[in-house]
């Protein structure tokens, strides 16, 4: 294992400390329980918080700031945070207008957020939750823990964050969040595995000429292993199931999000974006907005995920609204 670390058990805390110093104008970090909170919290609006295992940076801590999240709760690497963290973060951002929990659909995340929401409710805080589950690689959701929450989470946090910033109430924020989740689909693949610092070894192994299709974001293997193929074939492999699932139709306007898994150079992401744009053009689907970069990652994994979100006018307006966080910034 070659990593820029001091000790595996200190990675999360030391990274949080670094983030706090690097972005002191935007965020503060609270330790024990660990959470990242927007400066000046609580703000007079619905609080929006998220959380999940570490190792997916910049998600979620990098999205704390104006127009996006009010707080983020980082767990150990690839391990959901614990209820104490979400409870403390919920209290820190509650301005009396309620708090929305954005939860990715993983068994541990759902259970820990559920316990935190019960505890917050017991303290008189109104909490609503939205669970993202956009990963079409999970084929039979009846026989699994359900589809995983992946790329849509990033888009949802931006859009619902803008709604909360504009003064939407908790029920409206929840409804917008659910609409985003319902209209978004994702799928990813890996060229290389990744190594959890405390495990010291990769989560799975891939030969030089192999790729893993349908991966999640926790170093877990995907649904099938295939021989490596050209970018255009991989793009078809990912876009096909996404397009068929919703389904996206001719005339739809979408946000096209090409995401790097952590170890993918931007040049390759643009190769993939080019392929995705061609596929969408062939189907007469308009790319109204785009996002290209590594925003929801899996440590140093090389690979890519595609997310398509069918947009409506309100979503476009909220997407375009100003945002200022460590990882996303425009309009201000």
């Amino acid at each position, binding site marked *: 294992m070659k990593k820029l670390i001091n000790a595996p058990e200190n990675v999360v805390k030391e990274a949080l400390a670094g983030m706090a110093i690097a972005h002191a104008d935007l965020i503060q970090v609270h330790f024990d329980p660990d959470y990242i909170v927007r400066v000046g919290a609580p703000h007079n609006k619905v609080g929006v918080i998220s959380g999940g295992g570490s190792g997916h940076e910049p998600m979620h801590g990098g999205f704390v700031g104006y127009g996006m999240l009010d707080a983020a709760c980082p767990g150990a690497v690839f391990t959901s945070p614990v209820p104490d963290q979400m409870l403390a973060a919920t209290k820190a951002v509650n301005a009396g207008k309620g708090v929305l929990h954005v939860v990715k659909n993983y068994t*541990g995340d759902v259970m820990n957020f559920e316990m935190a929401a019960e505890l917050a409710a017991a303290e008189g805080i109104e909490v609503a939750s939205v669970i993202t589950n956009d990963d079409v690689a999970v084929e039979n959701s009846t026989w699994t823990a359900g589809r995983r929450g992946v790329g849509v989470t990033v888009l949802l946090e931006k859009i619902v964050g803008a709604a909360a910033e504009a003064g939407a109430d908790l029920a409206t924020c929840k409804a917008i969040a659910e609409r985003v989740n319902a209209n978004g689909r994702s799928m990813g693949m890996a060229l290389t595995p990744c190594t959890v610092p405390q495990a010291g070894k990769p989560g799975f192994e891939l030969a030089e000429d192999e790729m893993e299709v349908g991966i999640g974001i926790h170093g877990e293997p995907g649904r099938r292993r295939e021989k490596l193929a050209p970018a255009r074939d991989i793009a078809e492999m990912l876009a096909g199931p996404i397009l068929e699932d919703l389904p996206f139709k001719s005339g739809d306007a979408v946000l096209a999000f090409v995401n790097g898994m952590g170890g993918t150079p931007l040049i390759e992401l643009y190769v993939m974006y080019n392929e995705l744009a061609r596929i969408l053009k062939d189907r007469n689907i308009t790319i109204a907005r785009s996002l290209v970069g590594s925003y929801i990652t899996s440590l140093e994994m090389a690979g890519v995920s595609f997310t398509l979100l069918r947009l409506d006018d309100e979503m476009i307006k909220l997407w375009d609204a100003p945002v200022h966080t460590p990882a996303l910034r425009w309009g201000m």
Partner: protein
Amino acid sequence: MQITADHVIRFLQLVAERVKEQRDYLTKLDAAIGDADHGVNLDRGFSTVMSKLPTATDRSISGLLKLTGMTLISTVGGASGPLYGTAFLRAGTAIGDRATIGAEELIAALSAALDGIQTRGKATRGEKTMIDAIAPAIDTLKEQYAASGDLLVAMRAAVAACEQGMIATEPMLATKGRASYLGERSIGHRDPGAASAYLMAQALLETIERAAQG
């Protein structure tokens, strides 16, 4: 035979030791079908329980179990934190303010723990989870205790059933938890939660053997 708070402390120490010893084994099982953190997470949780035990103010059986449950919920994360945490909390609640417990109270507490896991995890048997090791163990414990009236005999049979249940997860197709995303590829691997449940069952048996010796 009566189980005392000292026995419970010994049980918790045994679990913490075994989890530490088997940390890499549990993590390796989890790497095959999950996310390679089960051993690391449980070890962090039980190490924290060990560090809190010396200064615990409520040293009753239920107090110790609740402290363990709260600590696991606060430190383990993942799915196993809420699941084992809920199990210890429910067991503590079932025992209430009893200073010592006999076989029937122990069986009731273990049943309450299993109920807690099933409720929190929304899982049943046959889904390749810790429930597949715990549920047959508790069934056997009840049957054998009803038949023999001897807790030690019943507990030995229960731990054997727990081991069988753990092994039986290997050919199962996972339909709950992160392993479910692998579909058919989850087949052939032992469930890490079932393996950690078996470690705890072994520790409980050793504790009862010790209690039986007086």
